[in-house]
């Protein structure tokens, strides 16, 4: 294997600094825009702005879109099912954090 190294790279935190256009989100998720439009229609992601050309997606859309696309592809879900699953996964993650940080639970592995 060849080795190469570069100088120190600066980066942006997507969720904080990087509002994304439809085209950028599609590229970052390797998805067709029609499919992303359908995710918007089903409320999986909620852009700001009037019309697809002007849409701006919050950085948090990246993760939700990627999870939804994987579920659609791998589990043969329909869009409504994938949208529900993404919402439930977020809720489970929230509950798990709450459980973990609740008094008396913090020492659990």
């Amino acid at each position, binding site marked *: 294997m*060849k080795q190469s190294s*570069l100088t*120190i790279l600066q980066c942006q935190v*997507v969720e904080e600094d*990087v509002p994304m256009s439809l085209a950028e989100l599609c590229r970052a998720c390797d998805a067709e825009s029609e499919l992303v439009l359908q995710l918007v229609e089903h409320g999986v992601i909620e852009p700001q702005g009037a019309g697809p050309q002007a849409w701006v997606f919050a950085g948090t859309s990246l993760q939700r879109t990627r999870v939804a696309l994987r579920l659609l592809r791998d*589990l043969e879900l329909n869009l409504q099912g994938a949208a529900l699953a993404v919402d439930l996964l977020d809720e489970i993650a929230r509950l798990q954090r709450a459980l973990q*940080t609740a008094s008396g639970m913090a020492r659990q592995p």
Partner: protein
Amino acid sequence: MKFKDYYQTLGLPREASADDIKHAYRRLARKYHPDLNKEADAEARFKELGEAYEVLKDPEKRAAYDDVGKRWQGGADQAPPPGWDSGYEFRGGQADGGGFGEHSDFFEALFGRRGAQAQRRAPPRAQDHHAKVQIDLVDAYRGAQRGIRLQVPTLDAQGHVVLSERTLDVAIPAGVREGQHLRLAGQGAPGFDGAPAGDLYLEIHFRPHPLYRVDGRDVYLELPVAPWEAALGATVDVPLPDGSVQMAVPAGSSQGRKLRLKGKGIPGKTPGDLYVLLQIAMPPPANDAQRQAWAELARQAAFNPRADMGAK
């Protein structure tokens, strides 16, 4: 090479119908999908399921596999078909969960690397790549420089695809949180014909810490205190991920009392808070003088912690 029992992977007998196969796959795929199942081996299990399903759902592949299976179990030496190691299908991102992009050597020996699902068409612009990165909580407090090793496919002089290793030195910014993504512009797949390179996205995860739990920007710490510190109040040292601070424990604190150190969570425009959960720790077995002191306290306090239960 080891024979892979795809029927066993799906928990099915060899005479299973196409419907049985579909049902078993759907059920197990939901169970082991890496987005739904956070167990460490879920991703590997899910890939095995995908591969088994890809073969058994296709009547031609299934027939070929069954045929090989009979001979294999008959003890015949199974030589891979000629040219089985030519070509290579690569899927971007070393840690991209799910998908059927990767196949076992067994699969590739049987069906060739191009037996895999159709190659992706060449995208007009270079692809963005994704990878996961583990950092320590302290890195989120101070920022950090991390060498990140990625394997990327490149063409060698003969035009063959080879994997080369690339190390990126990335400045992880202070204030980054679990599950966030860092974007490195132009560090994804190279562009062809003058097209710009794709971007690289790094998904941030914290290594589990023995002391701290993290919820978004906020950090939680269980802090042991002596019974008399909780009773009388005390000033105690609180270890922080990037240092330590002194904190006043108020007199009369109960077990589990939550104290907030404002702004001592993960830094940022709105820094998080650090919550200290008091844990009253009993001292080890006492000598006579200490036992007498406890007995004296018991007499003086006349305290029944079970009074609310109506019990003595």
